[in-house]
């Protein structure tokens, strides 16, 4: 079942409320006192707010430096916000940081986050113990995870000997050690081959749809992956959330119009031009392999589409196919970036 189709309880499990983060300049006062030149502080996030619901796969997309990683690190308690709050399962990321960490697993594509001279099993055992699992439970969990993540044959291999894809799987397996209700995934398929990436996506979907379900917040540059996996998406640009919703809602909100292409036969080019151009503006008609392709732009839910169809039908035309082309997520992202640049 696709995430967007998944029903279920929709309580917020992650609440991000007006989070701003400005990275202070280290030793700013001392530098001021010594009259040393200082760069302005970096404002990474500005008044970011959204909720992620239980069992949801929520995508965070944006360009490099947009603020995705900072936000993820704030949720994971590694960085404190300048203002605002991040609450995970009722625990505040600043005041109850240990409790938040017990609820959250983070998998990043950072290869250096493991001990390269230890084996897969030794690495997982160390982190399992940190999560408070006793040895018996930890061993059982590691066996489950190495099977789930196809690492069974590699348990005795040193981490440094693994391929990049397997290292990424290890990061995912580690994040799942304590069966956290919330998973933060930073580009989960970045280093995987297409087949492995598809299996990883299936796994992510099954985790969110499982019992108990895991809530997943993922950041990615792979927009088709985000569209496929995520029930809702937030677009972040220069530290600000520009849009939150399903991919359909975001595209619709962003561009109300869509391009329609009709392939028809049973009507000549002259006849079609005659009947359409007298009534409708900006309709393009082309002849292609003994069929006609009629292209036009319409506003969502207007009557233009219906009227053009009727006109062609009345003229003897037979509709062979209909294609519509809405704004892609990439176009939406690019346009927000352009807007930001124009706003300065």
């Amino acid at each position, binding site marked *: 079942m696709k995430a967007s189709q998944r029903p279920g309880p929709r309580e917020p499990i992650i609440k991000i409320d007006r989070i701003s*983060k400005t*990275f*202070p300049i*280290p030793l700013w006062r001392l530098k001021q006192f010594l009259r040393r030149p200082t760069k302005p502080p970096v404002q990474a996030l500005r008044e970011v707010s959204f909720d992620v619901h239980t069992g949801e796969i929520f995508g965070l997309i944006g360009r490099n430096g947009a603020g995705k990683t*900072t936000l993820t*690190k704030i949720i*994971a308690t*590694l*960085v*404190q916000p*300048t203002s605002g709050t991040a609450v995970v399962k009722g625990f505040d990321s600043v005041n109850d940081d*240990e*409790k938040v*960490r*017990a609820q*959250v697993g*983070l998998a*990043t594509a*950072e290869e*250096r*986050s*493991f*001990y390269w*001279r*230890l084996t897969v099993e*030794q690495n997982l*055992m*160390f*982190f399992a*113990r*940190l*999560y*408070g699992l*006793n040895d018996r439970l930890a061993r059982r969990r590691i066996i489950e995870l190495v099977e789930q993540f196809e690492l069974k044959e590699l348990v005795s291999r040193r981490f440094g000997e693994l391929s990049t894809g397997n290292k990424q799987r290890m990061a995912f397996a*580690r994040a799942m050690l304590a069966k956290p209700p919330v998973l933060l995934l930073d580009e989960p398929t970045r280093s995987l081959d297409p087949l492995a990436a598809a299996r990883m996506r299936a796994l992510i979907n099954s985790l969110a749809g499982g019992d108990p379900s895991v809530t997943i917040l993922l950041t990615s540059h792979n927009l088709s992956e985000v569209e496929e996996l995520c029930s809702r998406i937030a677009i972040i640009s220069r530290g600000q959330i520009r849009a939150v919703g399903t991919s359909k809602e975001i595209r619709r909100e962003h561009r109300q119009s869509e391009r329609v292409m009709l392939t028809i036969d049973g009507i000549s080019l002259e006849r079609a031009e005659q009947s359409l151009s007298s009534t409708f503006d900006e309709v393009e008609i082309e002849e292609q392999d003994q069929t006609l392709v009629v292209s036009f732009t319409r506003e969502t839910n207007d009557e233009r589409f219906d009227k053009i169809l009727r006109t062609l039908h009345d003229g003897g035309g037979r509709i062979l196919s209909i294609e519509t082309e809405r704004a892609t997520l990439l176009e939406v992202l690019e346009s927000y970036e352009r807007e930001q640049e124009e706003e300065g």
Partner: protein
Amino acid sequence: MIHALTLLLLRVRAFVARDFQLAISYRFEFFLRILTILLVVTTFYFISQIFAESGTQFSQWRDPLAAWITGLAVLNYFMTGFSSLANAIRSEQMQGTLESVLLSPVSVPTVVIASSAWDFVLATFHSSLYFFFGWLFFGVHFRGSFALALLFLVITTLVLACLGILSASFAMVFKRGDPFAILLGTGSALFSGVFFPTQLLGSGFGAVSRVLPTTYGLDGIRRVLIEGQGLSEVRDPLMILFIYLAVLLPFSLWVFARAVRRAKREGSLIQY
């Protein structure tokens, strides 16, 4: 309370097991270190033979090999107490593993303490080797209360661990160029009486010697193990060490908490 303690011990064990596994992945280095200690003890044995027939006014130095062995073994331990906490942070930062460790539901102080536990295990082993090789190959014998010597060792190590916490706080905020490490690391060997009696330092350097907690720790241990003194005779250096601990422990913990908060605010906890 018991649950929290069990969890703490489980985590300390996790770090010790990890560091043991890492250490045995470098087997050659492990054996090389043992050989180095044997060579050092042997070297000092032959140096001590130069002074074999000449008497000395310094009672702790009548058997110079015993004094050196004690000095080296104890200094190794003290320096572990001082440097392991900051090193724990620094090495995790440099390896890139600090972030993943800090993502577990373990507090930063627990991470720092637990990740330095292996250093203490190793320091205990290495320090014991100094005594063991001295006894086995060169007939060095100690007398006095080992329990009292252990008390000195523990208190001095705790005092140095407080300085180590200050050093770790410095590493967390400024990353490199730790002044504590420079002052204590080089200063202790010179001014604490590891290789020669502190009385030889004179009034100027003697003042530096009297400020260092390692001086009192080492003096106390030598008085107990070499001169056979009891608790009533070593009360003064013990009291001074307790005063150091009473002042430095709350201060270092306060500074450390501030450093962690600052590093989290700056987002520089995992940078080095």
